[in-house]
């Protein structure tokens, strides 16, 4: 075979060689590609590139290599499949040794064309190392290998094994039968299903179908979740899947939903069936129907809840009186918590004086007897006593033996209080009814008196209530026997009657006037409709009314008379008023006349005086020389008379004017007034020695015009009566006397006898002869009138020959200028002439 042919051959068939590197090496049909890859001569040259030899070697080496590579692969497969093989490590080593040998052959082929002898050497080295190691391992194994049974032994063993197999087959068959039986039994008893790891149902038994109400066809292939009832929370299933997914058995109660929607409870055991490597392969669920049990439990729980939530205390105790159960009601009523009470003696609830009761109760219970609704007193935890109603019943076990007692206690403290309050209220109303002055009656419509109070009995003159109630016929109580029937008819129509007036007949026959309020009460009493009446005795009032009527009659007569009198009085009054008006008018007229008189005095009287005086004077002047001295003296007398008359008229006018003058009170400084008066009187003091001692006077509350008149008259008086004195001394001063201001004017004049002092202030009263002291007798009267008009008084102190002091009182000024006045006191005490 030529090089090219080899190459072709290579192209055609050696491509299956396992070493991929060979592919390009053979591209030039036996010629190395791009020359040799090393400096060594390829083995082919040893073969002289004789294609026969070359390919013989190459193919042989190739086949050897293929074979060598195949052997370890088979070995590994063998080892893996047959775990029971001993010395597996040696097998591994052997495999490696053969693999290395194969590789040396591959390199043989390679070196035909390439000459990589270093590589080939290395591979051979590795192969040698593995060979040595394998041999080394084999040596110690030899004795062990020798101990392995020999072929005959193996044969015998095989026969035994076959026999054994036969036996075991029988046993297995028996076991399978047993298993089937057990399965049957299981299916009879339990609800069984299997699912794959995804939960898809792979098997169900009849009971499963029966309880779930699905057909087997519906179930198998469906996910187990179709039975989920939503009763359980997600965590419940998480925990379950977590358990079984980890290869552990799960057990629990599951509520499932049947096809028709009904729920059923199953006690479930899920067993994961595992693969060889311990992973769940499928799950087997074995269940028992516990729906009834669950229902019973629910009922029991509900009952327990009822017991617990009851407001009544529900307590159980054993026959020794030790508390075994204690509900919330008991906690509330007695104050002990369940944990506090459990195990304690029932006696903790008994008040000291009733401790002995418990023994009796327990004795009853032991006999199987209960105690119903008996009211007693118990003690709370805080020591307060409470009224309770207790029912105690024996508790029996399933065999009927009494094992304890249940106590149901209800707090009736409040009920007791209400009861007592009601009794009290009833008592109060009874007392009220009994004590009221009004009569109270209850009777049937046909007149049978059921109840009455003592007031009623007394009103009708009976001695006792019993006697009154025993009177059979009600009509006898009426003066007019038909009246009762009338009253009943009215009452039937209206239901109530108020202020119904009637006349009863007392037992002694005397009439009693009454006013009644009546009510018809229906259907409250077994005696039928009842008439309730409140009766007030108005006999006295009736009498009083009669008397009143008579009195009223009398009164109206008197009133008539009174009216008559009144009319007369009115007439008289009218007359009186008329007269008053007349008088007033007369008085006004008189006043007017007086004024007119004053006016005419001032005007008309003065004019003739002036004429008389005037013509006398003319007569004197023009004809005096022709008259004898006697006639002249007469004329002078006429003139003197005229002058006096003039004075008199002026002073009278003054006096009258004071009367009419309306008082204008104001704070008045008195000193300037005095000074003005003194200067007015200047003509009087000419040619005379007069010493003035005028103190500073306080302000006075007075009419300045009128007070000036007072000073004028008094000072003029003083000047007049001091005329005989060589040196006249006139003092004016004041003093405070009980809130009044006393002003006084003192002179050292002739004075007067005090026995005439009462005449001093009278009009036209004079104490001196006109020849000695001229005067009209009006000046002091005017002074008195003015002072009196001011609310003050005036008086004089005098001693004949020594002098006179005139004093008068005034109100001090309202605005308090006393200080000013005091400051002014220092002025003008010096003499003036």
């Amino acid at each position, binding site marked *: 075979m030529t090089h090219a042919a080899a190459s072709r051959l290579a192209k055609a068939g050696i491509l299956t060689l396992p070493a991929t590197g060979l592919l390009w090496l053979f591209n030039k049909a036996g010629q190395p590609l791009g020359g040799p890859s090393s400096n060594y001569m390829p083995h082919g040259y040893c073969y002289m590139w004789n294609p026969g030899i070359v390919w013989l070697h190459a193919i042989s080496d190739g086949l050897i290599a293929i074979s060598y590579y195949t052997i370890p692969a088979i070995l590994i497969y063998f080892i893996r499949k047959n775990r029971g093989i001993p010395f597996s490590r040696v097998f591994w080593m052997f495999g490696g040794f053969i693999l290395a040998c194969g590789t040396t052959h591959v390199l043989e082929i390679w070196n035909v064309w390439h000459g990589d002898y270093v590589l080939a050497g290395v591979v051979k080295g590795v192969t040698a190392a593995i060979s040595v190691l394998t041999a080394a391992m084999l040596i110690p194994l030899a004795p062990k290998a020798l101990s392995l049974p020999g072929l005959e032994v193996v044969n015998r063993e095989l026969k035994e094994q076959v026999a054994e197999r036969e036996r075991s087959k029988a046993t297995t068959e028996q076991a399978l039968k047993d298993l089937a039986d057990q399965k049957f039994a299981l299916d009879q008893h339990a609800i069984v299903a299997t699912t794959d790891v995804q939960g898809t149902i792979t098997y169900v038994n009849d009971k499963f179908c029966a309880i779930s109400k699905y057909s087997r066809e519906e179930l198998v292939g469906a996910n187990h979740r179709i039975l989920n009832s939503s009763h359980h929370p997600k965590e419940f299933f998480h925990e379950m899947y977590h358990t079984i997914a980890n290869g552990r058995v799960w057990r629990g109660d599951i509520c499932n939903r049947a096809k028709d929607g009904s729920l059923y409870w199953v006690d479930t055991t899920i067993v994961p069936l595992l693969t060889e490597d311990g992973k769940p392969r499928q799950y087997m669920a074995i269940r028992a129907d516990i729906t009834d049990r669950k229902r019973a439990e629910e009922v029991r729980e509900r009952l327990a809840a009822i017991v617990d939530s009851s407001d009544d205390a529900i307590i159980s105790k054993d026959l020794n009186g030790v508390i075994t159960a204690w509900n919330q009601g008991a906690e509330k009523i007695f104050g002990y918590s369940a944990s506090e009470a459990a195990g304690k003696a029932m006696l903790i609830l008994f008040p000291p004086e009733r401790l002995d009761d418990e023994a009796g109760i327990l004795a009853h219970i032991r006999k199987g007897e209960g105690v119903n609704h008996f009211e007693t007193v118990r003690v709370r935890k805080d020591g307060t006593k409470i009224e309770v109603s207790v029912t105690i019943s024996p508790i029996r076990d399933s065999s009927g033996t009494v094992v304890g007692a249940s106590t149901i206690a209800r707090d009736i403290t409040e009920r007791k209080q209400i009861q007592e309050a009601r009794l009290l209220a009833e008592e109060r109303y009874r007392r009220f009814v009994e004590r009221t002055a009004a009569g109270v009656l209850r009777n049937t419509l046909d007149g049978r008196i059921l109840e009455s109070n003592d007031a009623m009995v007394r009103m009708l003159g009976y001695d006792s209530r019993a006697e009154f109630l025993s009177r059979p016929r009600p009509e006898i109580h009426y003066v007019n026997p038909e009246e009762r029937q009338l009253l009943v008819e009215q009452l039937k129509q209206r239901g109530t009657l108020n202020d119904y007036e009637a006349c009863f007949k007392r037992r002694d026959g005397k009439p009693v006037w009454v006013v009644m309020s009546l009510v018809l009460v229906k259907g409250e009493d077994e005696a039928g409709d009842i008439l309730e009446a409140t009766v007030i005795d108005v006999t006295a009032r009736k009498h009083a009314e009669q008397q009143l009527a008579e009195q009223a009659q009398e009164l109206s007569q008197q009133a008539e008379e009174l009216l008559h009198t009144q009319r007369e009085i009115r007439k008289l009054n009218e007359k009186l008023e008329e007269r008053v008006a007349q008088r007033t008018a007369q008085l006004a007229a008189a006043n007017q006349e007086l004024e007119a008189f004053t006016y005419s005095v001032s*005007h008309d009287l003065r004019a003739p005086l002036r004429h008389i005086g005037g013509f006398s004077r*003319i007569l004197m002047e023009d004809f005096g020389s022709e008259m004898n001295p006697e006639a002249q003296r007469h004329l002078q007398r006429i003139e003197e008379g005229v002058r006096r*008359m003039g004075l008199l008229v002026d002073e009278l006018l003054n006096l009258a004017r004071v009367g009419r003058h309306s008082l204008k009170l104001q704070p008045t400084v008195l000193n300037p007034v005095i000074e003005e008066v003194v200067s007015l009187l200047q003509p009087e003091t000419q040619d005379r020695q007069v010493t003035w001692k005028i103190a500073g006077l306080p302000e006075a509350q007075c009419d300045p015009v009128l007070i000036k008149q007072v000073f004028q008259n008094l000072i003029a008086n003083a000047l007049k009566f001091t005329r005989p004195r060589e040196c006249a001394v006139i003092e004016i001063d004041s003093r405070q006397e009980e809130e009044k201001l006393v002003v006084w004017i003192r002179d050292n004049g002739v004075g007067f006898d005090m026995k005439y002092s009462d005449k001093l202030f009278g009009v036209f009263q004079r104490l001196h002869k006109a020849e000695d002291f001229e005067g009209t007798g009006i000046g002091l009267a005017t002074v008195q009138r003015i002072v009196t008009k001011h609310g003050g008084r005036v008086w004089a102190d005098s001693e004949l020959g020594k002098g006179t002091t005139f004093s008068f009182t005034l109100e001090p000024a309202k605005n308090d200028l006393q200080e000013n006045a005091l400051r002014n006191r220092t002025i003008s005490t010096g003499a003036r002439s």
Partner: protein
Amino acid sequence: MNANEIDILLVDDSQDDIDLTLHALRAERLANRVFVAYDGEEALDFLFCSGPHSDRSFDHPPKLILLDLKLPKVDGLQVLKRIKEDERTQTIPVVLMTSSKEERDRVQGYALGVNSYLQKPVDFEEFRKMVKLAGLYWLVVNQAPVVSSTPLAAEAK
């Protein structure tokens, strides 16, 4: 007596008072040109040239009027009022002479514009003194309005 040349118009109803007044005036040589009216009506007639005095001229009004308060027919205060209300006469000095000491008369008189108010004293000496003083004062001492007669004279034409 020429009614057009009058210095004083004396109005009084009392002949006594008139005589005494004239006596007093005469002593001072003031009584020559005096016209006496005996009541208020006559005084007004004289002043306003009416009634019996309608022939009188406005050209010569009196230089002084001595007026009593209590007068027949027209009261003194009424006369005063008419005099002081009328432009033609209001400049003539009017002296009220009365016996009355009544303050209200005085107040009313001044309110109506009287030029002087005199109370006739009872004593004749004093009376005489007073009349003399008043006459001299108003006719001699006092300066009358310059041409007091002019408005009246003008009106008369």
